[in-house]
């Protein structure tokens, strides 16, 4: 069995991200990291591939920026990496992205499980995950908090999903696409040897023609990025002789603001 996962490079979580004068999104000199949610999907892919004695591949869909996240994934222990790119690809258009992602999975022999992180922090969405599953025609198992059983021989899987209303135990037949939550595992740090090996690796690039697909027309358009309006807060530190006076003043304010 081959387990496939996806990742992408996103600005360091502590970076100040803003829109510059030309309207482009920039994070200055800050480094990129693996999309924070993907640390868990990468780790889970390594563990599950080990458990079933299978192969693992990480895919990034997009430009050269994303190669760093692929190298990080290899350094963690994913066995293969590939980058899929297309002229004119708009990564904010989930249908375009999912079309390439699904075609790439179809190009991997014996792929039966795809594991995504919960969402993509750069585009601020998880829609491409569900759309990749739909393009593949595979069962989608979202918000997985634990993989209870992956039986390659029987072709079945049992997972725990954590939803807004509670936890569900679900069984399904392979092939499946999953999204996994933070907390499903404790992601490892890449080893020194892993990093050295990953740095030497050449990452193949697949184009739409390699995958026998055509990039569909845009289904949505990003018109502009803007900086959010400055938060209009005049901060007021509440003073008082003692705690009782301070909380009484704060309670007055909260009653006035009508938020209770």
């Amino acid at each position, binding site marked *: 069995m081959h387990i496939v996962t996806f990742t992408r490079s*996103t600005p360091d*979580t*502590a970076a*100040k*991200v*803003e829109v510059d004068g030309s309207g482009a*999104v920039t994070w200055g000199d800050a480094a990129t990291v693996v999309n924070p*949610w993907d640390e868990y999907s990468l780790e889970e892919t390594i563990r599950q591939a080990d458990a079933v004695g299978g192969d693992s591949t990480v895919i990034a869909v997009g430009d050269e920026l994303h190669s760093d996240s692929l190298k990080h994934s290899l350094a963690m222990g994913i066995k293969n990496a590939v980058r899929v790119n297309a002229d004119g690809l708009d990564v*904010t258009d*989930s*249908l375009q992205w999912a079309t390439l992602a699904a075609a790439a999975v179809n190009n991997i022999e014996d792929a039966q499980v795809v594991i995504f992180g919960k969402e993509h*922090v*750069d585009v*601020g*969405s*998880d*829609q*491409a995950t*569900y*759309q990749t599953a739909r*393009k593949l025609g595979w*069962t*989608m198992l979202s918000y997985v908090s634990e993989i209870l059983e992956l039986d390659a021989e029987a072709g079945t899987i*049992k997972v725990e999903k*954590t*939803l*807004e*209303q*509670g936890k*569900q*135990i*679900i*069984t*399904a037949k392979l092939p499946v696409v999953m999204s996994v939550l*933070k*907390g499903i595992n404790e992601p490892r740090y890449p080893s020194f040897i892993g990093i050295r090996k990953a740095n030497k690796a050449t990452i193949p690039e697949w184009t739409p023609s390699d995958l026998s697909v055509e990039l569909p027309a*845009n289904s*949505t*358009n*990003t*018109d502009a*990025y*803007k*900086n*959010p309006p400055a938060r209009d*807060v005049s*901060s*007021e*530190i*509440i003073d008082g002789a003692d*705690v*009782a006076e*301070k*909380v009484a003043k*704060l*309670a007055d304010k*909260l*009653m006035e603001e009508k*938020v*209770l």
Partner: protein
Amino acid sequence: MSVFVFVETFEGTANNVSWEALGAAKPIADAFGTDITAVVFGKNANAIANEAGTFGAAKAIICEDATLDVFRLEPYAALLSQLVQEHKPEAVIAVATNRGRELMASSAVDTNSGLITEATDLSADGNGIQVTRTAYAGKVLQEMTVSTDTKFVTIRGRSFAPNEKDEAATIDVSSVEPVLSEDEIAVKVESFDAEVGKVNLNDAAIIVSGGRGMVNNPKDAPADADDKEIWKAKDGYATVIQPLADTLGAAVGASRAAVDAGYIPYEHQVGQTGKNVNPDLYIAAGISGAIQHQAGMRNSKLIVAINKDGEAPIFKISRYGIVGDLYHVLPALNEELKKRLGK
């Protein structure tokens, strides 16, 4: 040609956030010169459709079938996609809940439609729908347009007001059959445990959050506690945060630092790798306000910070702050608010 609004149900009742989707749909339907059709699947759909009528839906399409009682993507998406193909609505709008997200994304693929998620503002000009949303963990605003034949949009919860309720309104309800039968559905739900559902940060009007400062509990941990810090912090959530949350009818949140330290389960985490929330009131206690935390809560209407460190960055985005020990301030605040609220 109507505008569809997917109304979520859970165990036979409507998920109230869906009324916000009807509110968001109203100006869109007006711009396209059409009305709103509520789409309701599952137990009690007929009664819920009538409720949708009082919140602005002119029509409803319902399906009450056992295969749809518990939400599963396959039967829901198959049916929604078929309805979109038959009725060719101008738009389909839903709230970006767990289910709304995957359902809308899947039906958008089935019908080759564009989808924009988590709108915080919407407008339409008769051709397309313009959406404002956030990207890069809330750090940047993104303006997008969708203009495919049917336009799929999910809205962020608590960003749009419901239409005013009109008890006298009537609704034209039509009932349809499901597309998939039980043996055509690969996913089986074995069991369900509602315990974590109690957290529900997304719908909360008030959130009381505790951070790393929870560890400064003046109580002594019992000698047999495995980890004294964790014991102190957990005790603090139970004896200081939770009572205030109970007084206010609030949900309990936490910072990543607190979750990673094992003080409280992940379901409570607010911020970049947790929940993105926008309550009316957010009380941050013992939270310094790292940029990752701010990303998840800076859109709260009113932020109150309580922190020992007067230089903590959280104060810069807070309307009101108290510099002090949360273990002194919160119990006193709780007693004061109980008096004010008559509890």
